[in-house]
């Protein structure tokens, strides 16, 4: 094919939508990240490395920081702030699951490095038991909840996916968590949740049971006691903080949007 010779290519390669969309801006310039990131170094770069999901940079920055800064400060003032920004980017639709997952990997690597320096696991705020409904192998949502909670300093007992009702009930009995979460993607597996609620109630256990996932709706989750609907994985830390302060499942049903600081439609994600 013979191409015509064109001197001025501007009209071919010009992006007409620049004015409409605005130029593509780097993630650190987005309002979500600017609002969540710490101002001072090295916390800012630590947090930003988490936002970008770059495990290698996180690790090298953490190792550097450990020479002068306490491991706990690195986690709380740096890494965790990065995860806050990731949550905000996810909420605004800028980030999608892959971004959240690589950020989570980077942050967990950073935390592990800090705990190594500390010689022990960090002090935890409270205990949460997480699981995926019996019969359901879809655990991405649950893994995100686990990761967001760990990043926020909670001790998470992760029961995994496809967890039998009895195992969940036994774990609650043994671990005495402040909160239980259950996720389900399939309409066929979510029926496990009211059964778990029944068993816990019959044993006199009254803890919030946060249920979420593609198959669920607020309306359905509130059809059984203890249950409240969790709309998005990144809401978990704020919900945990509220539960830690003593908020129960009845209040969480009513005050959900207020607690997480976002509007939720009450449908699965």
């Amino acid at each position, binding site marked *: 094919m013979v191409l015509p010779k064109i001197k001025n290519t501007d009209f071919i390669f010009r992006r007409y939508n620049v004015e409409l969309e605005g130029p593509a801006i780097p993630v650190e310039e987005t309002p979500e990240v600017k609002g969540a990131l710490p101002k001072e170094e090295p916390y800012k770069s630590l947090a930003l490395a988490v936002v970008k999901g770059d495990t290698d940079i996180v690790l090298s920055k953490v190792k550097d920081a450990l020479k002068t800064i306490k491991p706990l400060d690195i986690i709380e003032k740096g890494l965790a702030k990065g995860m806050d920004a990731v949550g905000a980017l996810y909420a605004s639709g800028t980030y999608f699951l*892959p971004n959240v997952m690589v950020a989570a990997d980077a942050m967990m690597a950073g935390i592990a490095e800090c705990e190594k320096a500390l010689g022990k696991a960090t002090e935890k705020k409270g205990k949460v038991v997480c699981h995926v409904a019996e*019969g359901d192998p879809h655990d991405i949502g649950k893994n995100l909840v686990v990761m967001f909670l760990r990043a926020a300093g909670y001790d998470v007992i992760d029961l995994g996916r496809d967890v039998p009702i009895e195992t969940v009930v036994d774990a609650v009995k043994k671990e005495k968590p402040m909160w239980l979460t259950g996720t389900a993607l399939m309409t066929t597996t979510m029926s496990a949740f009211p059964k778990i609620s029944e068993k816990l109630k019959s044993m006199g256990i009254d803890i919030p049971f946060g249920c979420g996932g593609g198959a669920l709706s607020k309306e359905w989750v509130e059809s059984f006691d203890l249950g409240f609907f969790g709309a998005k994985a990144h809401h978990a830390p704020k919900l945990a903080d509220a539960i830690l302060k003593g908020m129960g499942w009845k209040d969480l049903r009513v005050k959900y949007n207020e607690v997480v600081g976002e509007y939720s439609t009450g449908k699965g994600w």
Partner: protein
Amino acid sequence: MVELTPKERAFKILKGEKVDRIPATSLAGCGGTVNVEMQEATGIFWPEAHKDPEKMAKLAIASYELTGLECVRVPFDFVEEPEALGCKIKFGEKVDSVPAVVEHVFSSPEELKKPENILELGRIPVVLKAIEILKERVGDFLPISSLALGPFTLAAMLAGEARFLTWVLKKPDYVRAFVDFSTDVIIEYAKAQYKAGSHIVQIGDPTASPDLISPDAFRQFAKPALIEVADNLDGLKLLHICGKAESIVPDMADCGYHGISVEESVNISRIKTLVGNVKILGNINSKRTLLFGKPEEVEAEVKLAIASGVDFVEPGCGFAPRTPTRNIKAMVEATKKFGVKT
């Protein structure tokens, strides 16, 4: 005028011809057409029916006989390809258990190997045989649809979804290699479905949904493969993507399928102008209205879907196994009532 058969009607709509009314079908979607009540009525139960062509075909026909649904569809799950390629599947023991992948097989492009005899592996022969039986028994009267996975979804199943999603950012070359590999498998399987007698092949690509990956990632990784699949299939074909898919509807319509299937989160009147001649299948709420709602609520949703411009009234993502038969009937009846074209 002689009334159209459901098969003629579906064919005409997908080919862009005028028909007497909108049909009530479930040609596409991750869920199937069979519920627990149908299993009880026929005495044919899951998980056995997932593995036996005769039982599979009988249950599929029951979904028409017991509700008037204007199609038949097999299989009732969507893990045939990963199973044939070696993924471990959990079938579950209950009548509402949907088989699912529990162990993934490939962790790098070097490991990808397509078996020569893929059409003879796992339950692929079961599905193909079930299609043959359906063709013989109802193929003159009802449209037969069958399911093959979208390349992105199959690729994610082969690698494990969590790992695969991180590859989208970290190892795009891996994603491409897995998707390319999956594309070949799907084309071969889908062609075999037509050959066995399927009228309409549904490509179901739930993992490519904006619920999981960004529209950019969809355009980069999933869409080219969907186009390649469509280009290689001569028969009628549909594309189903569930979740909040509205942002990729123009891309879905662009992939070369006769129709796209979307769920309740998508606003049909809004997308109607974006899809050109591509038909829209949907989008009665599978998870709430059909599963838990009253027949009146189903009727109201059908009325709205028709007014919004669907070409086929369908559940947004197939029927959940616990969907009551009366709600499926309500969907069919309401469609016949409100779907007449003037």
